[in-house]
């Protein structure tokens, strides 16, 4: 019988999953039947319908939003037909009397221009058409008319005019919220662009000074360093796309470290451990290099500038972790007081040293969500370990262009 049991399991599991999903989808607040007076009950019903109509409208006045919300709005008004338009077209006609659809835009010219609600008679060829009157209520956002809500009824009714006006104002509020959402998205995008890390001017001066020091003594080395410098600046000044791949970012770090090594010589010791399958992961442009720069700085600080022989060790690890890549950057330098670090990351203070960290943290949170912020383990004198988790796939995150040739 075990085969039968197996078949039963295979058949029942999807059913269970589907039932679970349906249950989640259709779960409503407890029945309101025995809750309060009939008036209160009606209020709850109305509020519930309004709640259901709201989410689609938050996408703005589009055809899909109109289609999804029109039925709810019609049941809110209790009319036979309801129509939503923008300034030029009918977006949706819900209910009976579809043949008026073509006629409605001509009627709307006046109200759309004036921004005032009206009740208009409809002309119809068929004698038993139940739709005789159209109540027009404009949808306005910031005093600009964006469209209209048209409720149709068999006869003229002051109640309907009033109700349509109120519903139209409620819809307008939702559209204003949609507008706010859009501005917020634009703000975030602008912020990401503004946050796009820039290499520090100090680094440019220091690099050029180091190269200059080699020009006479070791021209070949100076030439190599100049090429590294060119590669690194080309990468960091490039303008297309906000995202790059881990492989490209690591190459930029390589160029950066070559220049830093020229300056600090043997005092810097770097270990790299890479799981090659995470190299194609797309990530925000220049979001690891600041972390390495930070590690170099902290590492060398901790050893004290006086003891030139002291070495600093930096480890960079990139490994595979299911649907994410795990990048760890650690140094054995001075470390930091966790409270001070917390203040830097919260943006309360902005000392020269921490700007790179909080910038990277902000960008990672903007792109991947709050749970993907940097995780930093540190204490004074104990070095610093920074962990970044990068999802392998995130909608909208695509590296621009091809990886550098292997």
């Amino acid at each position: 019988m075990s085969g039968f049991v197996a078949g039963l399991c295979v058949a029942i599991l999807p059913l269970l999953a589907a039932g679970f999903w349906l249950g989640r989808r259709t779960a409503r607040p407890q029945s309101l039947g025995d809750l309060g007076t009939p008036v209160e009950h009606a209020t709850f019903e109305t509020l519930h319908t309004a709640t259901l109509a709201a989410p689609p409208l938050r996408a703005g006045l589009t055809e899909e939003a109109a289609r999804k919300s029109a039925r709810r709005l019609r049941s809110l008004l209790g009319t036979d037909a309801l129509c939503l338009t923008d300034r030029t077209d009918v977006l949706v006609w819900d209910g009976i009397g579809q043949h008026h659809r073509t006629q409605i835009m001509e009627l709307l010219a006046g109200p759309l221009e004036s921004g005032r609600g009206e009740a208009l008679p409809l002309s119809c060829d068929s004698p038993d058409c139940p739709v005789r009157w159209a109540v027009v209520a404009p949808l306005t956002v910031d005093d600009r008319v964006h469209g209209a809500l048209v409720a149709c009824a068999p006869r003229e009714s002051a109640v309907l005019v009033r109700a349509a006006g109120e519903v139209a104002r409620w819809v307008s509020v939702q559209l204003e919220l949609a507008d706010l959402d859009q501005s917020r998205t634009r703000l975030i995008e602008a912020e990401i662009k503004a946050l796009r890390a820039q290499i520090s001017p100090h680094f440019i001066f220091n690099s050029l000074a180091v190269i200059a020091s080699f020009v006479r003594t070791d021209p070949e080395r100076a030439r190599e360093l100049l090429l590294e410098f060119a590669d690194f600046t080309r990468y960091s000044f490039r303008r297309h796309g906000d995202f790059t791949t881990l492989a490209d970012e690591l190459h930029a770090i390589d160029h950066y470290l070559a220049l830093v090594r020229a300056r600090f010589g043997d005092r810097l010791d770097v270990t790299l451990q890479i799981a090659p399958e995470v190299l194609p992961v797309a990530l925000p442009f220049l979001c690891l290099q600041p972390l390495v720069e930070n590690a170099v700085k902290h590492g060398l600080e901790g050893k004290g500038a006086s003891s030139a022989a002291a070495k600093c060790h930096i480890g960079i690890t990139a490994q595979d972790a299911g649907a994410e890549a795990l990048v760890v950057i650690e140094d054995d330098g001075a470390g930091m007081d966790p409270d001070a670090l917390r203040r830097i990351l919260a943006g309360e203070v902005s000392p020269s040293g921490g700007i790179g960290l909080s910038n990277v943290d902000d960008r990672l949170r903007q792109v991947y969500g709050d749970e993907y912020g940097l995780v930093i383990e540190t204490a004074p004198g104990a070095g610093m370990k920074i962990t970044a988790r990068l999802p392998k796939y995130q909608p909208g995150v695509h590296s621009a262009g091809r990886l550098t040739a292997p």
Partner: protein
Amino acid sequence: MNSSYAVPAVALVALATVLVGAFGLRISRTTSDFYVASRTVGPRLNAAAISGEYLSAASFLGIAGLVLVQGPDMLWYPVGYTAGYLVLLLFVAAPLRRSGAYTLPDFAEARLSSQAVRRLAGAFVVGTGWLYLLPQLQGAGLTLTVFTGAPDWLGGLVVAVVVVAIVAAGGMRSITFVQAFQYWLKLTALLVPALFLILAWQGDGAPRHAFDEPAAFREQRVVRVDDTITIRLRDPLTVTVDGTVDGRVHEDRRIRLDAGPHHIKNGTRLTFARGDEVPARDHGTGGGLSPSLAESRGERPLYATYGLILATFLGTMGLPHVVVRFYTSPHGVAARRTTVAVLGLIGAFYLLPPVYGALGRLYAPELTLSGDADAAALLLPGRMIGGVGGELLGALVAGGAFAAFLSTASGLTMAVAGVLTQDVLPSRGVRHFRLGTVFAMLVPLAASVLVGGLPVADAVGLAFAVSASSFCPLLVLGIWWHRLTPPGAAAGMLVGGGSALLAVAATMAGFPKAGALHALLAWPALWSVPLGFLTMILVSLATPGRVPPGTAAVLARFHLPEELRAEVKA
């Protein structure tokens, strides 16, 4: 057969897997090799990794068993398993890589920007993954039973524990090297013993009648029947019986069985003399177990063969553990080159199992009776060569088989666990990948203990059928047809994949036993794949307003080579 070398071999494979997984990162300490360390995975390494993950117990043991029992008709299995990559190469590989998707749900979201379709695809990934994990665990149980006589469920438990321990402890820090290592290990484990076996076969005078019907015993042989079965004799036969035949108990007595069917109770020992014909086993009577689909295909061989071809050709692209490996390729062209290399590597590997099947028919024909045909590859070295050498070669095969379970099971577990943690389990800040791993392995483990012996290659074939009828339409239409809509994709996956899943469930439950309906349900791909495509196309055409905005841009990204994209953006 007991072998003192098999257990150390298996332990060695597990240890090597852990070590390569934990320390197989590219390490650089000086400036000069920094560049080498951060170089992306080349097509050849990635192809070995994909092949290592793909070649499962069904390939390693199952095909030899099928050829042993059914003869050369079964060569369609390896052909289908390989040719799936050809379809993948032609239609899917490069656009899939360019989509940037890591898993199949990611692809659904990238193409259709719909959370509902994403969740549905996730559910099918979990379903296919579990269906595919089940035979891996059973195969492991079989291997351990053959070598140590341990109970059936123990091997599955060992693999499950090892995989969960490695994956959940974060031991797979670099899965590419692990899987590439497993591929070469598996190839060696079949190739070296095969060479010795062929030498032994040559030394035996190279008998060529492997597939002449019927197979005959080459020496006196005691067969212990583990299931209650019915055998069918063409001619009267005299055997020594210790146990119950046709309801009568015999104790080590020579009796004469007439031509016709005979009922043999489990636990019975039959001793055949040299030159005796191997009796044919009646299908459909193996107690509560469903008969091997391969056996019942005899009724409608043409239909069954086409069903198999369609399922394997189109099902490969939807296997969750194969898809995620393409992400490792740095770009679309590399993904294509990788697929070509995979075709070569897998094609080379599949030359070997049929050799074991053919030799098994000559030297271990009784396996068809005892129901352990899948063990042919494990038993042959000991049987044909014998001595310490035979045992060592047997241990090598056992190690390779264990590598097959480990690599496929760990790849599947990671794929299923990834979907479970991302889309099913509630997220609490840091997602519970470990919990997902345990959950991903627990369900098939419980099922394998409950279900017992479903033939390994069959269960895999069913997983292929479900994958072919749900993901193949999604991938092919998603990549090549701009009018696909989210409702269409959801409906197509539900109708195609759902009907295939129901057919699988009915077949596993043993309903119906025979007839046209049984053939239809046992080989569902031939009708469920077109059904899935048709539903997807019709529902998409019926909902033209739901084509996601930005489809043109998404398709352009799928099909344009990466260099061009960079130029356009710049």
